[in-house]
């Protein structure tokens, strides 16, 4: 899945998933380019703020084991002292647990 990053956070080696286009519609960099530090410098001078890059994990989406997910969920539930009562609340818990589990994996 392509990911949007701020140019300020762009690093060498990232691969563009979409071309970088300026406000006149001219292509500055085509997609597929591997970013070099000179690219990033030029993009900043051009006032480009965001890039769409290929997600490094796109081929192998990080798998969060159900065990890790359960641990994350339990530690949230300990601070919640309440249980989800409807679909929205359940989803808030699931999404938060997934986020924390991924953080643990250093993703």
């Amino acid at each position: 899945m392509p990911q949007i990053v701020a140019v300020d956070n762009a690093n060498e080696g990232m691969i563009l998933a979409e071309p970088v286009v300026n406000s006149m519609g001219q292509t500055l960099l085509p997609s597929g380019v591997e970013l070099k530090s000179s690219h990033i410098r030029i993009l900043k001078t051009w006032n480009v703020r965001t890039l769409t890059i290929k997600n490094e994990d796109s081929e192998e989406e990080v798998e969060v084991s159900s065990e890790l997910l359960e641990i994350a969920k339990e530690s949230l539930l300990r601070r919640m002292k309440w249980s989800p009562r409807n679909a929205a609340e359940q989803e808030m818990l699931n999404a938060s647990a997934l986020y924390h589990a991924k953080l643990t994996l250093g993703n």
Partner: protein
Amino acid sequence: MDKLIQLNDILLKVQEFPTLPTIYVALMDVMANPRSTANHVAEIIAQDQASAAKILRVANSSIYGFHGRINNISQAIVFIGFDEVKNLVTALSIINLFQKVNVHSDINPVNLWKHSIAVGIITRMLGQHLGVKDLENYFLAGILHDIGKLLFFKIIPEAYSEVVSYAILNNMTFREAEQKKLGITHTVAGELLAEKWKLPQQIKQCIRYHNIGLIDGKPNQLVSCVHVANIFATMLGFGTTGDEVIQEPNLGVWQSVKIPEGFFMSSLQKILFTYEESIEFLLKSN
């Protein structure tokens, strides 16, 4: 139980609290005048270069989704609207005002601001997904919901640090501890400050009622969105409020927050990205 400080002293300190900077006041005057144009507003903002630059960055950020297409303040007014530009000036002025809060406890004002910015972002995205037409105030309401806590840290730092410790030790919510030890909660004090600053009615309501999520038992879409966003940001651990306890949503809020299924899961990445992008330029000192 002995109060840490007299309620009157607190109220007096709120009244003596600084007003918002002149740029904000000048902007209010211009906007109140029906004959003002976008250029008048742009001129005032341009006098403060630091604010102008930040406003352009926010206007171009993922919060609004114009990705670098806004080049000057006049354009920002056209794209995101008069009121939203005014709100950004307000947010930046207030963040600036509270940046030098000295805190003698575990809670760091930067972390509180991070939490508040996350709440602002999520509140606005909730509003968007609910199809709210008038999204102005959504971002600002989220950002300012906990202004009362920052106010306490600024005007009564020692006493409030004690309140925080007391809440954590006794496993209480902040509001319970505040009521017991100060005789006034951060939501009520925050509303008083908002009143003094003449902030919009909707913002005042969110500061006052975000913990309950309803106004006098009645649903209110913006207040309910801030309520849900506040809980979700706490669950995600974006910044900290100091409260270890994750509050239970008020069941009544789901009447006005009829969010499509899948919102929380599918918005996660966008929330995270927008959050990381925003805290960098909103909290960076000039």
